[in-house]
């Protein structure tokens, strides 16, 4: 450890630079996850909403579609919140390799 690191390590735990670093780490991780999503997700979400609405009147924002990577497979997760049901959530998972 160099002398300068010694000085650096003596600075208080939360400097404005360390706050910046932490915020950036969270944000960048989030934005990278968004970025790797296929472009068809928003359209898929819209069309699904239309189909669901033929049967159940759900709110505009009742459907969320997310794509996650889990090891060597991608998981497409579809979340639909139904209005005033005993079990308010229908969850569907599609897997692909």
């Amino acid at each position, binding site marked *: 450890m160099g002398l300068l690191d010694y000085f650096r390590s003596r600075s208080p735990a939360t400097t404005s630079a*360390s706050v910046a670093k932490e915020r*950036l780490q969270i944000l960048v991780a989030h934005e990278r996850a968004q970025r790797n999503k296929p472009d068809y997700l928003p359209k898929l979400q819209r069309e699904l909403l239309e189909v669901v609405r033929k049967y159940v009147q759900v709110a505009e924002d009742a459907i969320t579609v997310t794509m996650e990577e889990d090891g060597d497979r991608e998981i497409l997760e579809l979340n639909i919140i139904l209005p005033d049901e005993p079990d308010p959530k229908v969850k569907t998972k599609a897997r692909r390799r």
Partner: protein
Amino acid sequence: MARIIVVTSGKGGVGKTTTSAAFAMGLAMKGYRTAVIDFDVGLRNLDLVMGCERRVVYDFVNVLNGEATLHQALIRDKRRDNLFILPASQTRDKESLTKEGVERVLNELAETHEYIVCDSPAGIEKGATLAMYFADDALVVTNPEVSSVRDSDRMLGILASKSRRAELGVEPIKEYLLLTRYSPERVRLGEMLSVEDVQEILSMHLLGVIPESKSVLGASNAGTPVILDEKSDAGQAYGDIVRRYLGEQVPHRFVEENKKGLLKRLFGG
């Protein structure tokens, strides 16, 4: 065959044009036949930083529109006869910037040059995406500051997905981090992200650090790329970067405060 280098950032005003001018001059000083293109159509500035603003007759858009030949538009540097500048237009709209047109100009330049440096405009609009589309290497100019780091990360996403190399499925663009306007003192005080912080967040290969330096303004005032100011810290830092890019092992400098500062702090002198 030329190697195409894009100098990009996302965020504006971080030092792309300063870097493009210094880097192109540095490659020319190493003996390579180099061209530097201003992609900032409508906001030409590279000509000023290179000191050739009064010699602009035709520009990039004239060449794209077939109103001038590339030969007519290229300005030969007065200091180095192996360095050429293709200025951006000052007024013309960006309509003329097309993938096909840019490719044609780059192909023609590649016949007679070894390096082509593309000074990208800020943002993610057409000028910026076209500047990077044909690149082999990208210098991602970043300031140690939250919005600049975030925007650099966005550019990494675009470099990885919307480039010719990505579309052809060949070896991806080589990305180099260039941290500019760095102040070791402010890092020590905990006011500024450190080079390690930025590297950790972006996980990129560090090409070098350019310190915040008065010499940069002086250089642009004079129209002399700062790399020619060999006494200045920023000039030396750009010199190191060119050598490192060309494969030399050059230790990083200007990352820590100079020794005088340290002794001063230790002994309160």
